[in-house]
């Protein structure tokens, strides 16, 4: 049984955690009204945000269809999370390094990865891991939370060389349970590195709800464990996300160290096309709720419309443009032709050792080719 004293002490402690840490910063309400400062975002930038989100949603929906048709493999959709990805990526500079997961192709494309490469990736082609020259986007990270440390290391390298840029790692709510999350935040804190840890808390790690994933009410509060700033924002509010990342970036390049950002959002669809969300949540209701009440694109449209920055005609043009770009990307991906199995022997090492040369010849022979 708890003593009187013990109970009192416990209660004081629980209260001691500032409620500020659990607040969700919001600028753009679901109804399109603005409740905070937005002077930092010029109108053209807002329209750019909108167009990117429209394009990304178009891409994502098409991929789900293509997966069903067998044109691409298992695919991880991000519909619903456009503001978190586009808003954050647009706050970066070209010199920043991005470490995305399998669900962050929207962010990756905003930062310069090509749509065709993203498609190749989901077609099971290693070419899809490559990014265009000068584009600082690493391939999607599959093992959860591991890439947070790569961002730390890259930020460290930049610091050691005096480069003024940041590394940003994208990850989900589930990722915050892995040891690597902890180690990454601690390293970044100890060495005061210019890293932005951007968590998209979409409420689920596959089937596991956040309440079951984590012992803490929020992810932002975990920053306390490292004495670094933690920010919780409405992840479907593209302005709020953009601002949080902009500020984190300012701090980082000013040498003030890392920031943990929790963007609260929701994926409308399945975890991947191999997943059936109706097994673990009231998918129809939840998905509908978020779509109708908290959609990131709809609220920006309302805002833009009221300020005459949007018109139905433009919308049509943008949608058409999106459809065309996505189709074009697929054409480009298909133009890569059939995958070459012999390519698997390349790039295991910078130089080919004897055993791989031998195995390559074996494959060639077993495929009826001549020994090379």
């Amino acid at each position, binding site marked *: 049984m708890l003593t009187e004293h013990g109970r009192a002490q416990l209660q004081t402690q629980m209260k001691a955690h500032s409620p500020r840490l659990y607040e969700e910063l919001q600028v753009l309400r679901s109804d399109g009204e603005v409740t905070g400062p937005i002077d930092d975002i010029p109108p053209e930038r807002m329209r750019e945000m909108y167009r990117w989100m429209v394009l990304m949603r178009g891409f994502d929906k098409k991929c789900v269809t293509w997966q069903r048709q067998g044109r691409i*493999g*298992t695919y991880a959709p991000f519909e619903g999370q456009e503001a978190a990805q586009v808003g954050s990526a647009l706050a970066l500079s070209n010199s920043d390094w991005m470490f995305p997961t*399998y669900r962050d192709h929207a962010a990756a494309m905003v930062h310069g990865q090509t749509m065709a490469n993203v498609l190749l*990736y989901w*077609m*099971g*082609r*290693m070419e*899809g891991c490559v990014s265009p020259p000068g584009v600082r986007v690493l391939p999607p990270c*599959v*093992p*959860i939370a591991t890439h947070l440390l790569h961002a730390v290391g890259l930020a460290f390298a930049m610091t050691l060389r005096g480069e003024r840029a940041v590394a940003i790692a994208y990850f989900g709510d*589930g*990722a915050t*349970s*892995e*040891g*690597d999350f902890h180690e990454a935040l601690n390293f970044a804190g100890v060495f005061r590195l210019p890293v932005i840890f951007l968590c998209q808390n979409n409420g689920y*790690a*596959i*089937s*596991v709800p956040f309440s*079951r*994933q*984590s012992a803490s009410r929020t992810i932002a509060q975990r920053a306390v464990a490292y004495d670094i700033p933690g920010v919780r924002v409405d992840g479907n509010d593209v302005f709020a996300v953009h601002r949080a990342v902009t500020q984190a970036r300012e701090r980082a390049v000013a040498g003030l160290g890392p920031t943990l950002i929790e963007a609260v959002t929701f994926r409308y669809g399945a975890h991947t096309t*191999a*997943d059936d969300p109706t*097994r*673990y949540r009231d998918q129809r209701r939840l998905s509908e709720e978020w779509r109708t009440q908290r959609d990131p694109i709809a609220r920006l449209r309302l805002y833009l419309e009221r300020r005459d920055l949007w018109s139905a005609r433009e919308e049509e043009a943008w949608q058409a443009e999106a459809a065309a770009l996505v189709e074009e990307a697929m054409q480009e991906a298909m133009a890569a032709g059939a*995958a*070459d*199995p012999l*390519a*698997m*022997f390349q790039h*295991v090492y910078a130089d080919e050792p004897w*055993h*791989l040369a031998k*195995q390559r010849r*074996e*494959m060639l*022979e*077993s*495929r009826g080719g001549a020994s090379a």
Partner: protein
Amino acid sequence: MSRALHLVQAVREALDLKLADDERVVLLGEDIGVNGSVFRATDGLIAKYGEHRVIDTPLAESGIIGTAIGLALGGLIPVVEIQFLAFIFPGLEQLFSHAARMRHRTRGQFGVPMVIRAPYGAGIRGPELHSESVEALFAHTPGLKVVVPGDPHDAKGLLISAIEDPDPVVFLEPTRIYRAFREAVPEGLYRVPIGKAKVVREGEDLSVITWGAMVRTALRAAQRMEQERGWRCEVVDLRTLHPVDRDAILASVQKTGRALVVHEAHRTAGLGAEIVSLINEEALLYLQAPIRRIAGYDVPVPMFAVEDDYLPTEERICRGIEETMQF
């Protein structure tokens, strides 16, 4: 009574029966509760046994394996699911430094009876790191047992044996044959002993030693070689990779005088090398030809567009048989 079941259904049935049979058995892993695991291996079990027996954990494999060790020390029998084998990597310290060593260092005072189940292997067009086959890592770790079923019947019987085993067992389930075929599986509890291989095809000319999803590929190759060449290949499904069934391997090779090891893991330092060495040490004089290894290439398992080329194919196995027979 037996019904035709897929391998993954046989796995599920073993879990179901042991949960009913022994209240010390608990399952834990990611998405194994309400979601019934990503391959449905635990489908419906949380509804039947409750969330204290079928435990959805946070996303942390070291956490899962470490917690399972504690559960085992506390008298329970945890059966862990690792969602895909490569995701065991963050948990290897718990497995290597603790699960495998606890009985030994405490001189038998504390055992760690637990099973780590993991879907593994290539061939289902999975994303990156969903297709690894690193059984050699476990076989090299004293204190662990390593089991791989090659068909639904064995999957059920071996998993039941693994759960009843007093030592930690790594139980690898080949995803490629999770639903590739159905087979008659008896109802009720039955055991397939750990440590015993199975001759799935008799023959006198050459022994193909293999396991997991490769058993089917090897069988097809053996059939083709018999049709095309009249050679009768014996196919041995190893079933337990550590400790291997020495007697079965030697008996087969002493009969045939020729052997081929087939596995989908990388060739270098793969388990095939151990089997070649065992035969070399104990039956060299019976050998009429070098033992070839038909294995996954020594490249990172490539993305799925070319995974079928990474895997040993019927074609490659046939070439291996031909070279060995014609040596």
